[in-house]
């Protein structure tokens, strides 16, 4: 579904992504892990055209998208939970969710159905329905950002650290939810700092370091691999 081949991304002179290739097949649940500054967020930005790629190609559903405009890429059926939430601060929760459905031009019945599901998942949002997102707590905003992405009923869902700022219980529920929507047919690419958690829910994982993919394998295998253990898990317990 998503084929990234040998792309490079620069911020001025900073070479943030170095000749990276990543594949996500239809129906897969893939996670991307790596330390601060490894380039995970940059990769997501490159996929949706927010950071121009230098070389290589990005294919989505068989079509080249690397030189498309961001909004056009999104309208092909991608949703993203961006780094730092980026809710629309002056919009109410309701409006933030509504705008998430813009790209797909959902009917109002579909929208209502999605909204019900999201409010079910995050009851907190129901209480805050008419509140401006900018005045909500960090975790509440994160819920809005996730809900907003789900409103797009995406073919491919990109998540950049969705668990950030969420209380433990909510994180657990979120992961269950992700599994659910994956089971329902969505393709997911998840960036997470919480490596254990990510590798538990995902099928496959990529490990990034300084702009390069240094390992990629089955999630289980990665979870047990020495490289990961040393870098991330060895110190646990």
């Amino acid at each position, binding site marked *: 579904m998503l084929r990234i081949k040998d792309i490079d991304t620069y911020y001025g002179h900073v070479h943030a992504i170095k000749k990276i290739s990543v594949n996500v097949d239809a129906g897969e649940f893939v996670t991307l892990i790596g330390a601060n*500054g490894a380039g995970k967020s940059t990769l997501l930005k490159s996929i949706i055209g927010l950071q121009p790629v230098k070389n290589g190609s990005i294919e989505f559903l068989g079509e080249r998208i690397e030189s498309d405009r961001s909004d056009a890429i999104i309208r092909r059926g991608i949703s993203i939970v961006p780094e730092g939430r980026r809710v629309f601060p002056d919009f109410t929760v309701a409006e933030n969710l509504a705008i998430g459905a813009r790209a797909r031009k959902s009917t109002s019945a579909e929208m209502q159905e999605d909204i019900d599901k999201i409010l079910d998942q995050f009851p907190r949002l129901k209480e805050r329905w008419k509140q401006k997102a900018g005045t909500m*707590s960090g975790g509440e905003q994160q819920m809005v950002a996730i809900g907003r992405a789900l409103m797009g009923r995406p073919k491919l869902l990109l998540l950049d650290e969705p668990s*950030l*700022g969420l*209380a433990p*219980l*909510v994180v657990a529920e979120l992961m269950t939810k992700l599994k659910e929507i994956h089971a329902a047919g969505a393709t997911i690419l998840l960036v997470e700092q919480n490596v254990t958690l990510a590798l538990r829910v995902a099928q496959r994982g990529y490990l990034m370091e300084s702009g390069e993919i240094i390992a990629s394998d089955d999630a289980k295998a990665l979870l047990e691999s020495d490289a990961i253990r040393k870098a991330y898990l060895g*110190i646990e317990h």
Partner: protein
Amino acid sequence: MTLSVKDISLRFGGVSALTNVSFDVQEGQVTGLIGPNGAGKTSLFNVVSGIYTPTSGQVFYNDHEISKLRLDQINRLGVARTFQNIMVFPELSLVENVMIGRQSRTKAGALSSIFRTRKERNERSEAERRSIELLSYVGLDKKKDELAKNLPYGEQRQLDIARALATDPKILLLDEPAAGLNLQERVSLKALIKKLNAMDYTIVLIEHDVKLVMDLCSRIVVLEYGNKISEGDPQQVQSDPKVIAAYLGSGGE
């Protein structure tokens, strides 16, 4: 006793962010503040640091009421904070970001800078030296001339800590410092907080990483829906059924 929160309530129109919350922070300790999303933790920091004026109740710092002061005044008394949402100065370099924190501990005025007095120059180079030192605490000294906006998310949070430290606070309020850090980085953060605590900083910590909180804090306050539902040492709190129901969950991590 350094910081004392007394009967604080905070309302925004219909929303009650805090209801009659009281607790004390003991000098030299690490106090944890936990609770579900939207429980009012950040709001409490905002009240203590002077961003919000409480609807009712008072905050005392060394028996001195601070709830009516402006935030820069509160900072000068020795209360510094970091932010849950990134609030670095995006267009300034890292060292400049931290040097802003030194402002409250330096004095030179506009006139002495116009005449470039020796005192002014010395003070400035001293501030710079100290800022770089603080950057090294959080491992960012190598990037000191980078613009803050170009840092990855996790490192911007670290910068925020260095900047708060630059104000030479007695109390440091940390709002989710571990968010966006991976396990290894959390270990360094834990070490840093321990080190700071050993250096006699009093610390109040908001975190959703329960393990980190339990390991670091000697006392924990739990909020839910703006109410304090529990308070005590890690054992007490962890076994409090109200806390388990509201926050920790029975499964446990």
